[in-house]
């Protein structure tokens, strides 16, 4: 979930009011956001407006990138607070193009590597420190979370005054062009920039295996940037006070690139900047045409049956009531009979289905408008058969003097394989473990119990412990090649622990489970030969018990005799 930091003064300016922590916490849920912290820069909570104060906010909706900026979050809260839905007249639409002073020509060479681009120019006043910081954060959050770590969307800002128009977006041999990347002094080829610049190291994977790399150059041949890696050190070095900034986004998905451009444009418009459209001329037609003027509104309206909204929300709502509720959530809509046509705001593209509009109806009306209602359907509750047999086994084990334990299911190869002296083939191993301590799924409860014993030598004896829980192991007959089973494992450790004790526990257990059973000799390397037995139920092997082999005890550093058993309790369910 994205976490953002918002400049307190900018945020309150955009919000149109000052809020304290309590009042902010009350309204943030309307944006599915939570207050995460408030850096008062040494001041008191009431000193709002002072410099350097930052509010930290966590956004929960991964499908609403428009909320991951100061202006975007403020816009949502402002509208929920009753402000009118903002207007953004600079958007072009299909058949309704705004005049564009600037042009970027896209060359066909980028088609395979990174085909799409959107751009616009912000002007009207010099960029402030707060706004510059915010747009850099927006760029990070948008391109990391929404743009999949810059793979599908990346963004750059440039000083328009230094650019000779038109700009060209093309792909070149990475050894053929050199430029000075941002933060460096000497020119590097694209290939060297990938190898040497920190951003090259971080994002180079995106261009791995590509024979040509994207490049943005102006009419004078000066490099603006090397998307999606790094800007140039001159045209691409933006500072507080610069006016007329070119914002450019490139990527692999036209809708994502376009929406990201719309989000940034609306943010700057809300902060009082002018947005000047830029025309992008493609060599071939795109979904939006061959020549597209950005910012561009592409979202299709979504039809919602007011009856569906009423049914889902559990409250009868007329089409007009639905439209009114949507307006409170910042969404324009109109009525068509019992249907409502909702127009996604310029900065949003999260309506996949009519139910997404229903949620905005809920948010627009507020949760208090939906009193909880007791469900009417009658259904019979019951525990799973595995749970029922497990409870029976647990109460028997407690009666037999055993303490119940509950363990984690992930562990190390050392514990599950080496110390037990078992083959590793049957054990489920994780391909991408975080550490070797959590690399395997336990194939048996015994290593969990022995791990306890190894950690508890100082606890007064006897130690009698058990667990009922799951194990997983390779099983070629399963669709997944792995079986999960519920087992009962027990361990008794004390100076006189012997086979007879374990045999008595098993006998008592089976007697009260009411099961016919038999035992036969077994040859399990974890137990002493001749002092172990396999448990049979209806001719099938369901477990093993006996005296643990001193070699196993030694592997665990256990110096007291131990007996143990493990039974597939699920087979009794």
């Amino acid at each position: 979930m994205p976490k953002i930091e918002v400049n307190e003064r900018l945020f309150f300016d955009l919000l149109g009011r000052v809020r304290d922590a309590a009042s902010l916490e009350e309204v943030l849920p309307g944006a599915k956001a939570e207050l995460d912290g408030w850096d008062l820069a040494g001041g008191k909570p009431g000193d709002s407006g002072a410099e350097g104060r930052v509010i930290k906010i966590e956004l929960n909706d991964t499908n609403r990138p428009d909320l991951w900026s100061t202006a975007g979050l403020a816009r949502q809260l402002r509208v929920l607070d009753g402000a009118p839905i903002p207007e953004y007249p600079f958007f072009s639409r299909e058949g309704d193009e705004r005049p564009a002073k600037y042009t970027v020509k896209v060359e066909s060479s980028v088609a395979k590597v990174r085909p799409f681009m959107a751009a616009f120019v912000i002007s009207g006043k010099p960029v402030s420190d707060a706004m510059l910081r915010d747009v850099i954060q927006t760029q990070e959050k948008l391109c990391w979370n929404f743009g999949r770590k810059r793979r599908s969307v990346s963004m750059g800002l440039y000083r328009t005054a230094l650019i000779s128009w038109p700009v060209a977006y093309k792909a070149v041999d990475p050894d053929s062009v050199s430029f000075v990347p941002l933060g460096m002094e000497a020119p590097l080829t694209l290939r060297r920039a990938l190898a040497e610049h920190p951003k090259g190291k971080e994002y180079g994977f995106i261009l791995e295996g590509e024979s040509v790399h994207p490049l943005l150059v102006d009419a004078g041949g000066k490099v603006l940037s090397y998307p999606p890696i790094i800007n140039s050190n001159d045209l691409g070095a933006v500072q507080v006070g610069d006016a007329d900034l070119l914002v450019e986004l490139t990527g692999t998905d036209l809708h994502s690139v376009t929406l990201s451009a719309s989000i940034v444009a609306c943010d700057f418009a809300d902060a009082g900047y002018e947005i000047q459209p830029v025309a992008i001329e493609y060599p071939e037609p795109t979904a939006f045409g061959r020549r597209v003027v950005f910012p561009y509104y592409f979202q299709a309206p979504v039809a919602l049956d007011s009856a569906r909204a009423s049914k889902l929300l559990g409250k009868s709502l007329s089409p007009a009531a639905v439209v009114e509720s949507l307006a409170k959530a910042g969404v324009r809509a109109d009525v068509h009979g019992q249907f409502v046509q909702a127009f996604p705001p310029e900065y949003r593209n999260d309506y996949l289905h009519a139910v997404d509009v229903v949620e905005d109806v809920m948010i627009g009306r507020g949760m208090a408008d939906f009193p909880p209602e007791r469900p009417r359907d009658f259904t019979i509750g019951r525990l799973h058969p595995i749970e029922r047999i497990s409870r029976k086994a647990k109460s028997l084990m407690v009666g037999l003097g055993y303490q119940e334990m509950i363990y984690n299911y992930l562990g190390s190869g050392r514990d599950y394989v080496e110390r037990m002296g078992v083959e590793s083939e049957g054990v489920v191993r994780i391909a991408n473990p975080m550490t070797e301590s959590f690399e395997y799924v336990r194939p048996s409860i015994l290593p969990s119990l022995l791990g306890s014993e190894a950690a508890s030598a100082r606890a007064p004896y006897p130690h009698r412990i058990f667990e009922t829980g799951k194990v997983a192991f390779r099983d070629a007959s399963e669709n997944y090649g792995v079986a999960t089973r519920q087992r009962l494992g027990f361990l008794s450790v004390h100076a006189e622990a012997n086979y007879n004790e374990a045999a008595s526990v098993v006998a008592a257990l089976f007697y009260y489970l009411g099961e016919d059973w038999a035992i036969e000799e077994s040859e399990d390397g974890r137990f002493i030969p001749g002092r172990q037995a396999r448990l049979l139920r209806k001719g099938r092997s369901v477990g093993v018990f006996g005296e643990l082999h001193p070699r196993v005890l030694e592997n665990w550093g256990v110096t007291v005799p131990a007996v143990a058993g493990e039974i597939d309790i699920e087979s009794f369910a």
Partner: protein
Amino acid sequence: MDARALAKSLHPLETKVLLRYGPGDELGNGRLAAELGYKEGQSNQAFSWLGAKGLVEEAGRSTRVVYELTPLGRELAEKGTPEERMLRHVASGRGATLPELAAALGLEQKDVGSAFGQLSKEGILAMGEGKKATPASGKPSPRMEAVRALLERAAASADGILGDETLSVPEREAMAGIAKKRGAGDSAFRVAERETIVYRLSAAAPEAAAALRELGVTGEEIGALTPAMLESGSWKEGTFRPYNVGVQPARLMPGRRNPYGEFLESVKDKLVSLGFEEFDGSLVETEFWNSDALFMPQFHSARDIHDVYRLAEPTSAKFIEEPYLSQVAAAHENGGATGSRGWSYSFDRDFTKRLILRSQGTVLSARALTRAAVPSKYFGIARCFRYDKVDATHLSDFYQTEGIVVGEDVSLRTLLGFLEMFAKEVAGAKEVKYVPGYFPFTEPSVEVHIKHPVLGWFELGGAGIFRPEVTEPLGVKVPVLAWGMGIDRMALMALGLNDLRELFSDDIEAVRLRRASFSV
């Protein structure tokens, strides 16, 4: 403690001492052995207990010399000393040279030599013709008789110890020849010094003795009641010694449930009482059921390589059940028949078969949808696995509680109704609030927050109505409420713990001693 209470707390070994002796009596182990029949251990206990209660005090200490029979000494007592054996051999008429004697008696040459030297010096044996030992007096000397007496007395005593004060003068002289202080392995006795303590009753003793008499306690009361007493009825003739009920009882280690396990069961019982049926499933799942069936796009950031655990071997399921695979794929690509526009990407049918460790309990809800009746309610407490660094608030595997409600008429308001029941019935909350939430598989989505008396507001869980892109490809045409609760967090609060790792503790003593009461 008053004298009466003190008297009641006395053991018979103490009682008899107090009743028998008066001020001025000098008491020691020997005296108690002779007069009360106490073994040395019993005397020591009596003095130690009485001392702790301030009823006896030390009157003085003396050191005495004792002789302790060695293993060799015990052997000599049994088989005879070399001198005795040589004398017997020669006296029986079988004259022999010293080497012959050594061979016949199984003795070392040097032992035979020194024994013969002693015997001839005392005129018992003499060296005759052919260097053969022959009888002189042929009778044991007083010294030899004293040695024999010492060996036999020591061997017959319980501890093999002879006090120096019990020896006669000739015995003391004889002892000097067969006892050593150090390196006594080849001697019959080891010389040691023993400290003996002399006790005297304290000034408080007469009062305690008076209280004993007043109570009628003699020290002959019945201690442990035995089957024999019950059978013979002998208990009728005696009285029972009262026991000190203030004594710390011995610790028992009973069989016992784990408090966390009891907590989980109590939650299950609550949910069953609310009409939910429990589901269960595999720890290993496919990307399909874990996420794709829940309409999480395959490029979703939560599905990155470092967010779920993949299996090393095998890596893929053999198949994904149809028609679910095709219907879910269509929902992702273009919405299929669900009325959604989908995620507009090409669904990867190999990736979807990839095997992972279940990362969310919702996978069980998705599977339940394929067989769900209308109406129906299901729940599960499922072990889930996350790519997290283990600390007090994160575990690599932990429990999640999930459930669904399938019904023709379920809605946001009934969802809130359920959440209210969970908050009040399961979590015991008094105050509940709901806020909009976000989950990839529900729309609308809400979070439920409850107020903890100490910790304040916190998120109990999340819920929503499954998206049509989730339910319809799995064959369900009616709305489905889905909810999840952070059960481990609730458990910490219920058990008064503050570290998630303690829920899964492998420390036997910590678990055995954990005392947790919860009112769920």
